[in-house]
């Protein structure tokens, strides 16, 4: 009689990587629904295309790398990347652009580095930035929210995506664009003159609800203990603080705090992008620094830079810095009066 031999522990918690990934996807639903409501069917087309392309690329690369396709597809990490990319790209983007984006996300940013767990950069953000630099026109054409005009019909949308036929008057400035483009106006002027603000409740028409949706999803993930509060809270706090400091209402002023927090990719970034564990710092202290620096960078780029939104750039920059943060934030462990630096020599 012989029994199997395996290493302790023999008990395991019931969570799994699949479950973590699926929970993340689930948590995007409120924000995604808000997007569909305000920006129309284009969001659904985006998501369908990114999911199809991303899973396809993932399977193809796994096949080329001779890995078990089913086993790795089932970790659902490609699905998460696909959903995040689909939500980040402007609705009604041309299909080929989405194709290129998915290629960069899955093949270049993830699999070429060795697959899940080995990618130093957030794949969705790599794709976003590559597209933003390569196709700035398409990437800055956001649909106007539903309360500012009619949404394209399904057939219009499909023609636009697959043939490139333009749709009249579907696009409009985002709240952040509005601020960027009106340098001479005071904050009060912008708020009364620009419809994207005059039609809004507290931050920017449509966008405020989309961000509120992602905030809701993020709180759900926090409750499910999918990630710790450190990075998102730190990012939002620094962003808020900076916008308060630089706010004076004049034409030089920063956008108000709520506008910063509830427009653009702020909430999506805070709860779904920078919490991507693979490419962030590892310790809690490290995550505080990581999130705080992203908040700072987002504000600096939005306020002083040329790009209206900055989450993608900031995240990539800090992904780059994450190993350095880790280096200096090894936590103090039991029985040590102070943390040992990862660089410190040890007596072998």
């Amino acid at each position, binding site marked *: *009689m*012989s*029994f*199997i*031999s*395996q*290493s*302790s*522990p*023999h*008990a*395991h*918690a019931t*969570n*799994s*990587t699949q*479950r*973590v990934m699926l929970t993340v996807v689930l948590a995007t639903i409120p924000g995604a629904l808000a997007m569909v409501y305000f920006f129309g069917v284009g969001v659904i087309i985006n998501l369908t295309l990114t999911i199809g392309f991303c899973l396809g690329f993932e399977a193809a690369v796994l096949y080329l790398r001779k890995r078990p396709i089913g*086993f790795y597809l089932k*970790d659902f*990490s490609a699905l998460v990347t696909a959903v995040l990319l689909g939500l980040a790209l402007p609705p009604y983007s041309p299909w080929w652009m989405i194709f290129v984006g998915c290629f960069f996300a899955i093949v270049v940013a993830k699999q070429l580095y060795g*697959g*899940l*767990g*080995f990618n130093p950069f957030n794949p969705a953000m790599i794709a976003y930035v590559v597209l933003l630099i390569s196709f700035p026109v398409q990437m800055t054409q956001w649909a106007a929210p539903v309360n500012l005009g009619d949404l394209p019909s399904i057939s219009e949308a499909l023609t636009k995506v697959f043939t490139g036929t333009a749709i009249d008057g579907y696009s409009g400035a985002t709240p952040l664009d509005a601020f960027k483009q009106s340098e001479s106006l005071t904050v009060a002027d912008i708020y009364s003159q620009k419809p994207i603000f005059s039609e809004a409740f507290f931050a920017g028409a449509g966008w405020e609800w989309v961000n509120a949706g992602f905030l809701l999803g993020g709180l759900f993930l926090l409750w499910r203990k*999918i*990630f*710790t509060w450190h990075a998102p809270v730190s990012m939002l706090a620094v962003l808020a603080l900076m916008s308060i400091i630089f706010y004076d209402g004049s034409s030089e002023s920063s956008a108000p705090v709520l506008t910063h927090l509830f427009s653009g990719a702020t909430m999506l970034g805070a709860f779904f992008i920078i919490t991507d*564990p*693979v490419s*962030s710092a*590892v*310790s*809690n202290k490290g995550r505080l620094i990581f999130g705080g620096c992203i908040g700072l960078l987002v504000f600096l780029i939005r306020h002083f830079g040329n790009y209206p939104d900055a989450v993608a750039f900031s995240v990539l920059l800090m992904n780059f810095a994450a190993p350095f943060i*880790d280096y200096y934030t*090894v*936590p*103090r*462990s*039991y*029985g*040590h*009066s102070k943390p*040992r*630096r*990862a*660089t*410190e*020599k*040890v007596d*072998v």
Partner: protein
Amino acid sequence: MTAHAVTHQIIATSSQSERKLFPIPGGVHPPENKSQSLNLPLSALPAPAKIILPLNQHIGAPAKPLVAIGERVLKGQLVASAKGFISANIHSSISGTVTAIEELPVPHPSGLPAMSIVIRSDNLDESVTYEPCENYFELPKEQVIAKIQSAGIVGMGGAGFPTSVKLGGRGKIEHLIINGTECEPYITADDILMQTYPQEIIEGVKLLAHLLGNPADVVIGMEDNKPKAFTALKEAAKGTNVQVVAFPGKYPSGGEKQLIQRLTGKEVPSGKLPSDVGAVVQNVGTVYAAYRAVKYGEPLIERITTVVGGALQKQGNVIVRIGTPVADALSEFGFKERQASQLIMGGPMMGFTLETAEIPIVKTSNCIIAPSYAEMPPVAPAQPCIRCGLCAEACPAGLLPQQLYWYARSEDHEKLQAHNLFDCIECGACSFVCPSHIPLVQYYRASKGAIRTEREEKAKSDRSRRRFEFKQERIAKAEAEKEAKRIARQKAAQEAQQKMAEQKAKAPPAAAAPATAESAEDTRARLERALASAQTRLESAQAKHAEAVAEGSDRVDQMAARVKQAELKVQEAQAKLSETQHTPTASTVDTNSDDPVARAIAKAQAKNAMSPLEKAQSNVESLENRLSKAQEKHQQALSEGADNASALLIGVNKLTEKLEQARTELQGLQAESLSSTEKPAAAPDDPAAAAIERAKAKAEAMASMSPKEKLENQIESLTGRIAKAEQKLAAAQAENADTVEALALGVEKLKAKLASTQQELEQLNP
């Protein structure tokens, strides 16, 4: 359920008022699974038919067996004694016969077999009489600790550290912490023990506190999931200074370091011991066993073990004799082997799997789990680490398990140590929470092993580097040393010779048996034991085989294979044994020895053993022998025209002279012996021994000379030889002997050789 929760609350509040508790980081909450083993009352397992006592049931050196195969032992008899400071005695838990002392599978995470004593029961359960002791508070502490030591008490919570060592330490102890935490799921052995014997435990705590110099803080700590044990102990502790504290459960709050932190807020510095922060932690089971050892003189021969799991018909706690095979305990609980996904000794978090149930329950075995597949399914394949950080949240040591995993995979030993790998207590909390099911602890264990090996190797290479550095120095010293040695050896040989002479006067030389003979004896005994066990096994295998054949069982093949295997083992053992028997166990010094001193001693010894007459005779004989050989050589040299013919001739002449001398001596002696007058013992400056000495000295001198010196020496001797040869030649010419030609040739050849040697020397002297 509600009642349970209420009790929790009561305990929590009452303990809070008594003692401040400190938070510990990390930790997990695996399902407790404790209730299923608490339904049955504590019972005792019948004495087994056979026990297996591994010699290493504790941390430290394995014990040394004191019994032989075939010997009858009683229950409670010491069968193996502690070897060294950190080791423990082992006693038989049944009466019966020792049937084997051999390597057998033992409960150890490595799964490797280890030396064990097997005892077959005679069903009499006859016990040695124990020595009770009432006044232990009055005895010197050392004496009480010695009682604990001789009873073989070790930490029963899992580690198996000898208790007497922990109690005998120096340094002031402020906290005596009794660990009743039992934070691992499934295990309830300590819970039952505390419920059943609260009075004894409190007495034991008082005893240990006394031995440790009555620390100010004496506390029993447990998780608040044991309300019955808590109440029982609380009751028993009334009127003493023993605190009983329950705190909310969290795995691994029962880890030694974690418990100290929980109760005192102190952290044991990395690489240090609890006593360095003034704390001693003892498991409740250990306290109980130590108390019984002192009070009743009982050795550690039984313990409480939880037998639990879905593949059993009933589950509960039993008192088992140490050494009982796991299979015995399992069958008592209705083990359904097919339903078991695995077999675990210890808890599900830190226990290890057993490959067979033929493994004994030892002093540290607190639990045996036979889980069903639903309970503990085989582990899912590992997925990539997504760096979610859940493991870092769970780690009680504050480590970064995901980084350790990363470095372990890339075998970056430096980084692993910088991330304090060696502070990992292998609690398994990280693996427990990991959503990717990565066997993290396994990686850490492997890395720790690799680093330890690396350290050893480094120490080794350091040593060899030092050796290299000292080499130059040594070479410089070598000449002087050799010279000194040579003189010393010469002296030693002389002294030895003298000693032999003296010894001979007192006792026959054979009496001086070398110390190594004893260890040879030991080896033989061990091999004989091994052979005996192998034979017993063979017999039992054959019996089983016969049985199987008779029954027509489908296990015949298997049995036949076992018989084959046993036969092989017997053969092997026999071969080994006969090997040792053939090795000469030299009681006299070996004449073929490599050591010149020993050789000289041996020869001198042989010489001294003879009477002067015999000696003279043998002397003559050997001289005759040598002469004939020398003559032969000379003739040969002459016929070949070899250049050493003349030298040989000189030798022949000398030998002839010597022979003459010896013969006269012999004749004298013979005459003397005829007149029956005894001659005094041989003078120490025996010519033969002297000759040996001379030859030896010469050989040594040659060996220690530099090439230059050698050449010079050669030249000298050649010059001497030439002179002598010329003399001879002249004499021969004068006599007109027929050897003239040969001698002339010899002289010439010698001269040629001298010239070439001189040339060689010149080349050496630039």
